[in-house]
Structure formats: structure tokens, C-alpha cells
């Protein structure tokens, strides 16, 4: 049999199914959940960046009103570090010794009857330190560096020979600062033990990983741990790890024998749940006079914590961005006394693309060719490293459609040649080749006696629209109206799905849901085929489709029955099926797995006297494969573009170079784009369903951000003639 042949529900700009809950304030975020008898916790954090705790006096704090316990490295048992995950190591367990590794490290946790009491008592914890001189930047000779941390360094051809053969070369250094994820939702953990059973409401993008981690750290079976994250106030990568504060909340709940709730403060969000790490990148490009790339060399160094790891191969993407015979990419990390970095929306690629696409603009200027023409001439028609055809690639269409919509052909070639009063006007562009990513996933789909269906998965909806697209997908495949499908997500007791991250969840989990639907329809068909009372008795499976809330004869919708009728006649309250998806294997397919592609065209206005940069419009065209929901996907890309504008001209987490303290850890001091900064945005999707994905989906959660910073920097150069190679682009660079 087959499912419905056309796609009436899939792809439709369906309203977000969780919208009404969210606009009425009813959606339960982790910090909104309360349990009877819960206590509240507050963190005490280190005020030095390196050294040792010499004395930690909790006497006054313990005597303060309402205080139930103060956890320190003297009280917390030796806990193992969490497990290796598919994204790398777990963070070190907290409060294990007297050593200070970064400013803002947790040194104590106060538990009290109320949050206010815990916060007040936290100020009474006296900590004496023996400070050491911290390592805070790349150039510190004491810093330990890690070469090629992920084995991704690449060599193709002979880059020195390539550069020697070039008519024109570019050699430039680009720097990007620390950025902080800063989801609006403060991260929160509510932990409750009942004997050896542990329930945790956590601000995580990956409930299954938190469950596995807590089971290992606290020495209980995974089945006795339940982690819930049905709603999350954003994450942008910050929710991809089981952070030390999560472990501490669980330990505190065990210590006081009551549920314990810990909500981070905004300043604590800067030091406790990761950030996009700062980096320095050197790019050398070589091209012949006809604008053919003959060499790409891209080296990066980024900053890492002293005892933790993070995946940030800035340069790796440059190996596959363009057709080029001679390529070297190499990444290095330097350990410093800074908080642990983490993936922040488009990790590594946000930074690496800024360097490469800025250098491409510099090369275009040096060659005196149009920046778009340079990219088209060096387009990677096949995967540059594997030599295989792409599973899908509409990058050329992204460029063509974007240029047309933006009006690129009317752009004057010379920098600083357009003005509007005292505003210098410039236009720049950048291309994006985002990597493919997918992890294995499970899902369950169940039809119930009322004739509706339920999708169940531990995967969660970070705000992207997972609830909505899974509901659409299931409704489509089972021939049900949207209103009769419900998705239950973000509960580690449900079939295991990967993280909401890496732009990979929709494809992984969606494919598992599709598999579950197919198995479920197979089971239903078996029931009716052998059932003389069914109007479909004896039907050839090829002649049956899922439609009208049940199974129907193809071409004869009057002949069939609803799921409710099938279940009722067979005395079953429900019938479910488990589905699975596994990532495609490129060698088996004979093609290179493609992620999303994109092109951004930006216009900026720079005040000639004051150096102010305003982004006035951005045209973005994305090849995301099949788009399951035009409305939610577009919103993802728009949000990504604004994130890119933040990276380009606002966001900068500033660490004091002597103390290691983050100097701007509030929303008042860490600038993010606001309504008044939003330019005219034009987002278009192009391309075909991807051949390597069961659903044809490529994922659009991150691609919209990548390339925006370069497009803006290139536009600033076009406006002013000034090349800014350091983000964010602030007025001081333009005066």
C-alpha cells in the first residue's frame, strides 16, 4: 500500500500548533514548573579566574533564615564525570576540589525554603582564595594548545605551489569575539528524588542525553531517571550539555530529601551554559587572472576552557566551499581560564564563513571582478574533496534568485560610490555551504480509539516548530486532519531522539516518524485484509491508501473505514508502531551528503561622520531541501539572519583581560538586535528535496545565520572603502 500520493498538508504554512499555549502564557517552561514541597537553590560563584580556595566558611549562610543546606566541595561526594556523548565529553563534575578554573565557576550552592532566602544566604558564604595569574588569551606563552582537535584538518594538492602559481593573492587575519547564546529563557533545573527514582525538569535541548548523564553520575539505572523538557525558552546550543548546575541541583535534591529548583540569573547565563568562543583566523587565497581559485589556506585558533572541550572547527568548512585544487585547513584550540564554550547557532561555521567569505570579497576586489561572479566561477559542482555529486545543491539558484531579488546588477563596482545624505550606502554578499548532519532517531506513532493519532519522542521543540511539523507529517501520512494528531515531545521516557541541534532533528526525527507511520499502516492493513467484516477485506496492499481518517480503496474513497472503526471492531483501545531512522551513508549512495546552501545579499548605511552602521536590508535565499512548513521554516531563517546581524555589529562578550571577569554580563551591556534594528528582510526558498534524506529535508535552523556577518562586512567595505576584519563592526573601526 502507499500513503496519500500528493502532499496537501506537508509544506503548507500551517500555524504553529503550540501557538495558542504560548500567546496566553500557558506553555510550561522549566522555570514555570513547581512541585509540592520544593526548596530553592542559589549559586555562589568564583570571583577569581585561577587559583585555589583556601577557606570556605558557610557558618553565617547556614544560620540564615530558611536555609536547608549549603553544598561545597567539602560536602559533595566524589562524582564521576558524565559520559562521552555524540557531541563530545561531558562537563567536569562540579564541586569536586578546591581548584578554580575560571571566573564564575560554581563554588557553592545554597538551598533554602524560598529563592529569595537562598539568594540572600548565598551572599553570606565567605570564600577565601589563593589566586594564581590566569591564562586569558591566545598569546599567553603558558597556554596549552591542542592541534587538530577533531582530526578534521585537511590537505588537498600543494597549497604553496598553488599560491606560487596565482596571479593574485589575499593574505588576511580575521578575529571574532566571544558571543553568548543568551536564550531568553533562564536555564532552570527542578530535580526530585523518590527513592532511587529521579525526575528532572530541565532546560535542555537533549533530554535523552541528560537522562544518560544523570544515571551515570548518580549511579542509578537509566530507566529510573526521567528528564522533561517539553518547552524551552530558546537555547541556540546552550542546552546541548548537562552543565554542572544541573548536577548540583540533583545532588541538592538528594541531600535535602525534597525537590530542589535552581534558576540561573542572567549574569550566570554568561558563565554557566557556554558561549561561542573567540577566534583568530588567517586566510590565504590565490587565484589566476581569470578569477579561478588555485589555493585556499585557512588556519584558525579558538579559545577553550582549561578542563573541557568544545567542537569548533572554524576552518573545516573551507575545504568544501569551493572547487579548488590546492587546499589546507587547520584548526587549533588554546586552553585558558575561561568558562567552557559551547555550540552557539552554527558553531564553527558562523566564524569560519566570516573569514572565508570576507577573504573572497577581498580577492574579488584584488581581481577587479564582481564578488558574485567570483563565487559562480569557483562553484563546487561536485563535492570538492570526495569528487562525488551532491545529494542536492541549489547554490547557483540561491545566487541567481538572490541577485535578482536584491537588484545586485545595479550595484556600482567601486567602493564608496553611493551616498544618501550623510549616509554612505554599500552592498555586499556571501555564500554559504552548510554541512550535512544527522543522528539516529526513534519515534512511536499510535492511533487511538477516538480515531486520532499521537506522535511520541524524547526529542524536543526548541522553538523551531518540531511539534508542528511532526503533527503535519503524521497527519499527512495517516490521512488525518491536523486537529486529530497530537505530538508528545521532550520526555526522556519516550522513544529516544537526538538533540535539537545541528539542524538535524527534523530530518532524523521526521524520518523516524515516517517509518513508524508506515509500520503502523502495515499493521492496520493486516488487520483489515484478513477481516471478512472489513470493506477492505482481501484488498491488495497496493490498492489501499491512508485518507479520510482511515484506510481507503485507491480511487474509491467510499470503500474503506476509519481507524476508530478498525480498532473498535478488533477490541483494541489503540495500536502503535515504533519507527527508526539511521543516517544515510555517502559511499553506499555514491553521492556527497549535502546540507543546506544559501546566499545573503546585504545593504548597509554608514554614517560618514559618526561611523554608525545600520543594516538597511537583507535578501536571503536558502536551499533547505524540502520545506515541511513554509511559515516555521521562514521564521527560522529570519531569526538566523537577525542572529547574524547581532554577530556582525552588536554581540561581544567582553572579558576583563586581567581578572577574567565578564564585564558585560547583562542584557543592558551585552547588545543584541532589537525591533528598531530590524531591516527589511526578504527570505526565499529554492531547491529540490534532498535525494539522501527519506523526507528530502536538509534542515534550516542554522544556515540563515551563516554568511550574514561576511555579507555585512563586505557591504561596509563597499560603503566606506574600509575593510573591517574584526567583529563586531563598531563605529570606532570606521572613524
Amino acid at each position, binding site marked *: 500500500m502507499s500513503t496519500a500520493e500528493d502532499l496537501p498538508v506537508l509544506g503548507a504554512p500551517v500555524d*504553529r500548533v503550540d501557538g*495558542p499555549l504560548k*500567546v496566553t*502564557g500557558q506553555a510550561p517552561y522549566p522555570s514555570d514548573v513547581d512541585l509540592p514541597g520544593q526548596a530553592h537553590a542559589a549559586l555562589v560563584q568564583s570571583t577569581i579566574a585561577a587559583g585555589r580556595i583556601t577557606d570556605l566558611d558557610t557558618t553565617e549562610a547556614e544560620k540564615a533564615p530558611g536555609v536547608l543546606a549549603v553544598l561545597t566541595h567539602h560536602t559533595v561526594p566524589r562524582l564521576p564525570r558524565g559520559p562521552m556523548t555524540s557531541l563530545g565529553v561531558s562537563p567536569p563534575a562540579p564541586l569536586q576540589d578546591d581548584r578554580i578554573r575560571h571566573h564564575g565557576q560554581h563554588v557553592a550552592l545554597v538551598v533554602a525554603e524560598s529563592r529569595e532566602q537562598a539568594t540572600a544566604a548565598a551572599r553570606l558564604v565567605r570564600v577565601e582564595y589563593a589566586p594564581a595569574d590566569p591564562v586569558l588569551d591566545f598569546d599567553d606563552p603558558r597556554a596549552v594548545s591542542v592541534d587538530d582537535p577533531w582530526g578534521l584538518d585537511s590537505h588537498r594538492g600543494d597549497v604553496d605551489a598553488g599560491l606560487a602559481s596565482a596571479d593574485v593573492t589575499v593574505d588576511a587575519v580575521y578575529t571574532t569575539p566571544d558571543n553568548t547564546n543568551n536564550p*531568553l529563557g533562564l536555564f532552570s533545573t527542578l530535580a526530585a528524588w523518590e527513592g532511587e527514582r529521579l525526575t528532572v525538569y530541565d532546560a535542555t535541548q537533549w533530554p535523552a542525553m541528560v537522562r544518560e548523564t544523570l544515571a551515570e553520575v548518580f549511579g542509578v539505572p537509566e530507566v529510573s531517571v526521567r528528564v522533561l523538557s517539553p518547552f524551552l*525558552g530558546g537555547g541556540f546550543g546552550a542546552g546541548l550539555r548537562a552543565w554542572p548546575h544541573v548536577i548540583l541541583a540533583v545532588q541538592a535534591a538528594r541531600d535535602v530529601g525534597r525537590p530542589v529548583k535552581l534558576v540561573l540569573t542572567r549574569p550566570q547565563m554568561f558563565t554557566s551554559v557556554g558561549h561561542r568562543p573567540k577566534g583568530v583566523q588567517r586566510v590565504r587565497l590565490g587565484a589566476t587572472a581569470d578569477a579561478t581559485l588555485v589555493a585556499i589556506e585557512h588556519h584558525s585558533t579558538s579559545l577553550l576552557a582549561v578542563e573541557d572541550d568544545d567542537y569548533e572547527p572554524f576552518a573545516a568548512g573551507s575545504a568544501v566551499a569551493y572547487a579548488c585544487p590546492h587546499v589546507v585547513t587547520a584548526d587549533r584550540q588554546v586552553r585558558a581560564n575561561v568558562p567552557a564554550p559551547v555550540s552557539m547557532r552554527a558553531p564553527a561555521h558562523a566564524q569560519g564563513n566570516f573569514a572565508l567569505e570576507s577573504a573572497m570579497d577581498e580577492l574579488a576586489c584584488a581581481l577587479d571582478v564582481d564578488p558574485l561572479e567570483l563565487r559562480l566561477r569557483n562553484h563546487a559542482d561536485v563535492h570538492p574533496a570526495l569528487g562525488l555529486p551532491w545529494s542536492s545543491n541549489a547554490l547557483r539558484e540561491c545566487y541567481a534568485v538572490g541577485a535578482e531579488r536584491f537588484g545586485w546588477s545595479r550595484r556600482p563596482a567601486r567602493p564608496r560610490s553611493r551616498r544618501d545624505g550623510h549616509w554612505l550606502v554599500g552592498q555586499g554578499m556571501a555564500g554559504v555551504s552548510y554541512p550535512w548532519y544527522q543522528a539516529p532517531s526513534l519515534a512511536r506513532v499510535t492511533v487511538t480509539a477516538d480515531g486520532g493519532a499521537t506522535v511520541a519522542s524524547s526529542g524536543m521543540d526548541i522553538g523551531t516548530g518540531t511539534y508542528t511539523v511532526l503533527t503535519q507529517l503524521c497527519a499527512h501520512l495517516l490521512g488525518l486532519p491536523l486537529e486529530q494528531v497530537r505530538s508528545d515531545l521532550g520526555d526522556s521516557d519516550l522513544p529516544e531522539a537526538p538533540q535539537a541541534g545541528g539542524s538535524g532533528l527534523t530530518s532524523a526525527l521526521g524520518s523516524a516518524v515516517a517509518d513508524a507511520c508506515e509500520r503502523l499502516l502495515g499493521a492496520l492493513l493486516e488487520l483489515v485484509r484478513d477481516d471478512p467484516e472489513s470493506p477492505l477485506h482481501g484488498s491488495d496492499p497496493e490498492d489501499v491508501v491512508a485518507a479520510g481518517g482511515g484506510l481507503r480503496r485507491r480511487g474509491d474513497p467510499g470503500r474503506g473505514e476509519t481507524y476508530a472503526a478498525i480498532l473498535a471492531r478488533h477490541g483494541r483501545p489503540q495500536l502503535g508502531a515504533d519507527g527508526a531512522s539511521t543516517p544515510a551513508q555517502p559511499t553506499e549512495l555514491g553521492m556527497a551528503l549535502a546540507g543546506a546552501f544559501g546566499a545573503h545579499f546585504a545593504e548597509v548605511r554608514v554614517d560618514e561622520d559618526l561611523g554608525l552602521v545600520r543594516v538597511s536590508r537583507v535578501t536571503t535565499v536558502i536551499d533547505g531541501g524540502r520545506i515541511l512548513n513554509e511559515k*516555521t521554516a521562514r521564521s527560522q531563517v529570519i531569526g538566523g539572519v537577525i542572529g547574524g546581524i547581532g554577530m556582525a555589529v552588536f554581540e561581544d562578550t567582553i572579558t576583563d583581560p586581567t581578572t577574567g571577569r565578564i564585564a558585560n554580563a547583562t542584557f543592558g551591556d551585552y547588545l543584541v538586535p532589537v*525591533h528598531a534594528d530590524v531591516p527589511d528582510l526578504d527570505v526565499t526558498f529554492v531547491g529540490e528535496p534532498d535525494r539522501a534524506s527519506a523526507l528530502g529535508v536538509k534542515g534550516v535552523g542554522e544556515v540563515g545565520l551563516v554568511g550574514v556577518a561576511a555579507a555585512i562586512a563586505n557591504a561596509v567595505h563597499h560603503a566606506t572603502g574600509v575593510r573591517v576584519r574584526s567583529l563586531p563592526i563598531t563605529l570606532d573601526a570606521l572613524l
Partner: protein
Amino acid sequence: MRLNVTVNGERRQADDVWEGESLLYVLRERLGLPGSKNACEQGECGSCTVYLDDVPACSCLVAAGQAEGREVRTVEGLAEGEALDPVQQSFVDAGAVQCGFCTPGLVVAAHDLLDRVPDPSDEEIREALAGNLCRCTGYEKILDAVRTAAGAR
């Protein structure tokens, strides 16, 4: 102290309120109204925006005692029964919601804007909502939602 406050048209009372508590804390922790969000606790993000006597305010910056005897309207009090307020409906229709954490504050701020300026220009919308931070949506669809709601009211 005892706090008497009218919330969403209903007279409410909270006992043993500590003088240092914020109105946001009272709403969330004592009155069972977690719709208003805490995201910065210092008036920088707008997520906790409520009406205080018909004037929008960051409830994290209002001391609980300042609300004594006054009227508070939160995001939970905008809808009439099952029917969403036009502002709420337009946020759903326009796709102006992603993670949704900033949404309650934005809905109240947009509601207030349309009360004051029934047909705002784009510039007025941008300016009026510039104090409400959002990290997901890119704001573009929120602008659409406010335009749509202005037409619907």
C-alpha cells in the same frame, strides 16, 4: 506584609510577602500566574511586561508593595474566555512565535501600543517594542502580527 491587588479583574491577596519581593515574583510564585516571564530581572528584556493600572511596566522592577490596591493585568488576562485577544491571535497567525518565552511580554506591549495608537506606523511599532528582546524570531513576523492586529481591532 499582606498584599491586596486586583489581578485580571479578580481581587487577590498574598500573605507574608517580603518587602524586597518584586511584583513579578508575587505573580509567578504566589499567585500561580507564570505567564509573565523572568529573563533578566532588571528591566532590560521586557519579558515580564504587565499592565499596572493600564500602564505597561516591567513587573520585575515593581516592588510588590507598590502594587498594593492597584490593578494588574497579565498575559493570562487578555483573552476573553476561549477567544484569544486579536493581538494574541495575530501572533499565532503571523508566525510571530518561536520558543515563546518573550511572547507574553511582547503581547502585552503590543496590546498597549494598539490601545494608544490604533494604526501605528512601522517606525512606531519598532520603537514601541524595542524594549522587548527576542532571540528567536528576528522580529519581522512580530511586526506583521502587530500590523494585522491593528487591522482586526
